[in-house]
């Protein structure tokens, strides 16, 4: 009995922090419609500032707390709202989600530039005590809590009571609730809805900062990973509260913390379950909640009666390309290939990078299918790649099947898993689909990957190169060409699917699900096929990657890397095959450029993460947008020259991509107008 209560007590402070982050999450979601996945990252900012000032620079607790929580917390919220999210109030959900994803990728890296990459230990809490907050122990009968735990309990109580009172009784609370329902109608009452939104962002970020400072001593370290994963536990708690109720969210967070404490206490520490299940409990909880929790599945959105005021967002479906651009792309691609292939073949170093870029492009085609074509954000593409890789590795090492066959088997396996996952998950749609896939990715990573029969446990499994048709692909050059051939085959497949029945169904569904259903499109079937196809392509790429590196290394398929992949592809262009290839190449090229000019390589995720903000404006991708601009520019010039009767110049430069947009008519050039 005493044990039980001890474990429960140990879990509650964790639960409180989960609840704090969750409450902040609910607050921003309700007031701005942004599901802020970067919330854990925001908590990390404050935790890092507090650690740096209090531990490294020996500031007293109060000024360090004021700077980290009361100044930096709201400041981050202010910056995010003013610079990013206020321009996204009318953007579609997917765009806001992509923006939050970008921040999730970029913020921790930005902080690390200053704070340092490695986790920092020797964390001090905010509980004033001469021995240090961790060692101040308070006894309550048989049970004991240390200073950090007490501080967490008090802070949570203050926040919950304060926010509840704010919403019930205060002016700003009432305004926030009005803005949640309709920002436009609130403005008609003479209230500056933008300012109310900013205040809500600052307030929720303050809560995030507080959670960060409280959490660091409980983790006993300050590291970016802990905080980014924290968001999953918080989302689970928020989901428990149906994304609206603060008391239920608090309860959900505490239940989660307690469950984790109990698992930690009762499971034998060395067992597989203890190592896998305990850390992954939030992921499992989130996954199950999203799929089974009725308050999420039957959510009734209060609609904004003035939603019609906003211009319709640029629809994903309405992005037809001009024939000219397609041809220009093909010609350009041939030119690039003619230059790039000899260059890549010139040295082993470039050959390795080139092969990986080609394989990554194949994996990115899976994102083209699920995000570009089906319009859904899936955050477990890296997991499908991992499934492909591990299937390949296990079959090769245990059954000595030919490598080429195992790669295909891996793709098939990923496709099957994808289809099975799609059935419960696709019903959710929108952000819930993204969250459920992310939970699945983390669950897979922490529960299954460590198992011997999946990821190979401590020793990753070796994968040889394939050998068939009389060619030994152990030779890097021939393997490079094999990868290009596979990429070409998959590209053709994707193009055919896009032009075929399924592709058109998906186009119709993206345009309007209701209208598509009215003409007899079965949305579930079309999407399950897309999801499964996408998983299969990712699995194929994963198998290839393992073959290329010679080992099925779990770190290569890290779920956070997977997040970055999505951000990268979506930012550069997720609608076309060439978009996937550009992203695959850019992944290595940007890295290489940064390395050569001596800039910290964490700028790569920062650049692409922040680049994701452009998605709201250019859902076709920035490269695609630039290309259209350049082509339009060149065409205008050609027309002008023709009219003057001057000889036309060859149109070779149209694909330069980075050509400045036309200065003459900056606003007349609209997306989708070409």
């Amino acid at each position, binding site marked *: 009995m005493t044990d039980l209560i001890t474990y429960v007590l140990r879990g509650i402070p964790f639960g409180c922090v989960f609840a704090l982050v969750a409450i902040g999450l609910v607050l921003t979601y309700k007031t701005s419609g942004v599901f802020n996945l970067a919330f854990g990252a925001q908590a990390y900012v404050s935790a890092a500032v507090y650690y740096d000032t209090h531990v490294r620079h020996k500031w007293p607790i109060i000024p360090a707390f004021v700077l980290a929580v009361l100044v930096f917390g709201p400041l981050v919220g202010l910056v995010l709202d003013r610079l990013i999210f206020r321009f996204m109030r009318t953007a579609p959900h997917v765009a806001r989600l992509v923006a939050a994803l970008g921040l999730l990728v970029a913020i921790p890296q930005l902080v690390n530039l200053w704070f340092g990459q490695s986790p920092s230990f020797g964390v001090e809490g905010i509980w004033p005590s001469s021995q240090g907050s961790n060692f101040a122990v308070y006894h309550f009968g048989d049970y004991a809590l240390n200073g950090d735990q007490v501080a967490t309990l008090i802070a949570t109580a203050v926040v919950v009571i304060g926010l509840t009172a704010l919403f019930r009784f205060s*002016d700003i609370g*009432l*305004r926030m*609730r*009005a803005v*949640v*329902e*309709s920002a*436009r*109608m*609130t*403005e*008609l*009452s*003479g*209230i*500056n*809805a*933008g300012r109310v939104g900013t205040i809500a962002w600052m307030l929720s970020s303050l809560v995030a900062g507080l959670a960060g400072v409280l959490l660091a001593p409980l983790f006993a370290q300050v590291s970016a990973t802990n905080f980014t994963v924290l968001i999953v536990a918080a989302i689970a708690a928020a989901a428990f509260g149906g994304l609206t109720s603060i008391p239920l969210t608090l309860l959900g967070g505490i239940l989660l913390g307690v469950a984790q404490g109990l698992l930690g206490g009762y499971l034998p520490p060395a067992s597989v379950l203890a190592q896998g299940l305990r850390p992954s409990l939030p992921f499992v909880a989130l996954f199950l909640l999203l799929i089974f929790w009725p308050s999420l599945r039957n959510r009734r959105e*209060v609609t904004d*009666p*003035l939603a*019609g*005021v*906003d*211009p*319709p967002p640029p629809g994903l479906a309405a992005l037809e390309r001009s024939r000219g651009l397609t041809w220009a792309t093909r010609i350009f691609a041939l030119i690039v290939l003619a230059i790039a292939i000899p260059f890549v073949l010139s040295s082993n170093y470039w050959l390795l990078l080139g092969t990986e870029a080609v394989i990554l492009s194949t994996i990115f085609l899976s994102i083209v299918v699920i995000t570009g074509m089906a319009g859904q954000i899936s955050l477990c593409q890296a997991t499908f790649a991992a499934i492909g890789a591990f299937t390949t590795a296990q079959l090769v090492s245990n059954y000595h099947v030919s490598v080429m066959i195992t790669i295909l088997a891996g793709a098939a396996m990923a496709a099957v898993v994808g289809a099975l996952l799609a059935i419960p998950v696709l019903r959710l749609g929108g952000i819930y689909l993204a969250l459920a896939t992310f939970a699945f990715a983390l669950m897979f990573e922490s529960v299954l990957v460590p198992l011997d029969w999946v990821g190979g446990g401590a020793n990753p499994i070796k994968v040889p190169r394939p050998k068939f048709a009389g060619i030994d692909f152990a030779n890097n050059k021939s393997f490079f060409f094999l990868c290009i051939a596979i990429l070409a085959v998959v590209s053709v497949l994707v193009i055919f699917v896009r032009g075929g029945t399924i592709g058109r169904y998906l186009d119709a569904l993206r345009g309007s699900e209701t209208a598509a259903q009215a003409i007899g499109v079965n949305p579930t079937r079309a999407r399950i096929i897309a999801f499964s196809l996408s998983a299969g392509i990712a699995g194929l790429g994963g198998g290839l990657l393992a073959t290329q590196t010679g080992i099925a290394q779990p770190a290569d398929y890290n779920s956070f890397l997977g997040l970055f992949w999505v951000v990268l592809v979506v930012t550069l262009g997720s609608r076309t095959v060439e978009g996937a290839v550009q992203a695959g190449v850019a992944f290595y090229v940007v890295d290489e450029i940064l390395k050569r000019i001596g800039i910290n390589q964490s700028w790569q995720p920062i650049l692409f993460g922040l680049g994701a903000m452009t998605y709201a404006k250019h859902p076709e991708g920035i490269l695609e947008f630039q290309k259209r601009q350049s082509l339009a520019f060149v065409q205008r010039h050609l027309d002008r020259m023709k009219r003057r009767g001057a000889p036309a110049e060859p149109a070779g430069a149209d694909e330069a991509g980075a050509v400045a947009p036309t200065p003459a008519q900056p606003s007349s050039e*609209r997306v989708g*107008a070409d």
Partner: protein
Amino acid sequence: MTTSTPRSPEAAPLLELRDVEAGYGPFRALFGVSLSIPPGHVVALLGSNGAGKTTVARVCSGLVAPTAGKLLFEGNDVTGVRAYRIARLGVAHAPEGRSVFASLTVEENLLLAFRVDLGRKLAPEAVARAYELFPRLGERRKQHAGTLSGGEQRMLALARVLVNPPRLLIADELSLGLAPIVVEEVYRTLGKVRDEGAALLLIEQHVKHALALADDVAVLNHGQVNYYGPASELGDLSERLLPAASNGSHA
């Protein structure tokens, strides 16, 4: 009827649209609309579906910014000014459909508005007056506004403008979907709002009701003003301008 015509130079208009063009993204709804509403006047805005009536209302309250042309309030240029600032000048807009906050209670709906208009101190008093005018609302003060009937929701919207009359009330299809007896009541209330000195911009399907109350009539057709003049002179024109909606009956 009043003596001044809408275009008479001596009456400085309360709100004026000059050659306003507006739309939603790539869609254009208004093609050069000019309209002026003198203080205390009731202007009925008539036109068929899709003529741009609601867009005119949204331009007047700042919800939609004109892409060309000007919006003037008492002679001051307010083109592109945010909606909440225009609201603070005394323009109240009851949008088409639901115009109350469904997730707030009746009392909170009133408080939200009165706190902005009158300040925190005077707000409770104004709420009490609203309950005096509409006892039904008082009975339902703790109820979420979304659970009120359509008529009660209109009463709630009108209670606000009746207790604290705006300079201009834009009423967009205020009687849509209401029982005839409730429509009568809504119009009586609108008459009271006018008597309090507010100018009215009425957008209405019930042409008869609107014309009974209106001083001036503007007829909108395909995003352009087709006729603008005293309601009393509309007579002969009505057949041609409102082929579907009117049978020539007016006050």
